[in-house]
């Protein structure tokens, strides 16, 4: 899980049975004391592997939306919730956005990649060796190096951590105000990895293609989804072009518009053998 704190922006991404939406009220409280007012909110997630294990308010998307609606101030009057479908019913993308009247989408895009059925040999690299006395930090550094994660953005400042007995999280700081993050649950049967990065619509779009290719090759998943939140259509149209040479075929693509967020495009891919 990851937390990014900017002067006027905060991003929290958590997995497991965490109760993420319970952070909203305390965050608003602390922000108010700093003289800051909330102007937009975006909540996203995929379909849970174990939905029945999720605690309230994450039991259903409907409950999550109610919780969001009740937690957010009334100045965030432009609100929208949507479940974006795919051809696989177990892979949907859940999006809620809210903003005030003045908030406009920025020039940054967000790429959220969810990968399942990871290559077993590659996933094994995210297990600590029995008897290994390494700490989470040192084991994390070793995994970053051994798996090729460190080569995705060679210039990034990386903060990595390996969990005991398995699992891995990494935050990367790239080009000043840009971040990337990777989280891995390598256990066979429910293996999962996520990759997320931000970029600008003014960037060279070949950069995102190269980064996406490198990230996916670390895990070689059988199934993956890519959600692109962006005001420009230049980014999402490059995604399939990046993944198809790796043997991943685009099976579905859904698009929706959200106030103050721009377009959200949700694409799913599976290996050609599936």
């Amino acid at each position, binding site marked *: *899980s990851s937390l*990014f704190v900017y*002067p*006027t922006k905060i991003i*929290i991404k958590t997995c497991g049975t965490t*109760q993420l939406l319970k952070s909203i009220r305390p965050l608003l409280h602390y922000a108010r004391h700093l003289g800051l007012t909330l102007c937009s909110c975006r909540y996203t*997630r995929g379909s849970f592997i174990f939905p029945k294990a999720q605690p309230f308010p994450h039991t259903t998307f409907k409950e999550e939306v109610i919780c969001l609606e009740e937690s957010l101030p009334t100045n965030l009057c432009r609100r929208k919730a949507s479940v974006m479908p795919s051809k696989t019913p177990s892979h949907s993308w859940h999006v809620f956005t809210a903003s005030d009247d003045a908030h406009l989408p920025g020039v940054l895009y967000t790429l959220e990649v969810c990968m399942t059925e990871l290559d077993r040999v590659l996933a094994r690299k995210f297990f600590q060796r029995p008897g290994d006395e390494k700490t989470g930090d040192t084991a994390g550094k070793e995994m970053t190096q051994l798996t090729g994660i460190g080569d995705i953005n060679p210039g990034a400042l990386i903060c990595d951590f390996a969990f005991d007995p398995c699992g891995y999280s*990494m935050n990367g700081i790239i080009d000043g105000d840009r971040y990337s993050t990777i989280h891995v649950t390598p256990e066979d049967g429910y293996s999962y990895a996520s990759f997320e990065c931000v970029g600008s619509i003014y960037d060279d779009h070949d950069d995102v293609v190269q980064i996406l290719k490198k990230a996916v090759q670390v895990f070689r998943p059988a199934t993956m989804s890519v959600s692109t939140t962006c005001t420009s259509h230049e980014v999402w149209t490059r995604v399939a072009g990046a993944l198809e040479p790796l043997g991943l075929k685009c099976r579905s693509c859904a698009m929706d518009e959200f106030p103050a967020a721009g377009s959200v495009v949700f694409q799913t891919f599976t290996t050609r053998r599936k």
Partner: protein
Amino acid sequence: MAVSGFEGFEKRLELHFFGDDPAVTEMGLRQLDFESLEQVLHAVQCTVVSAVGNSYFDAYVLSE
């Protein structure tokens, strides 16, 4: 947790703020002390396990 599985799929929340005082917004939320962040994370049921930052933002790796 169901069966023996660990839920990998993340929930992601992004909040944007504005302020009228440029002196405040220059550092803004980064002025929050670690104890306050820990209280927020306590509500989520996470803790900080590692951290890094630069002049633009702070990045924390969390438990879970």
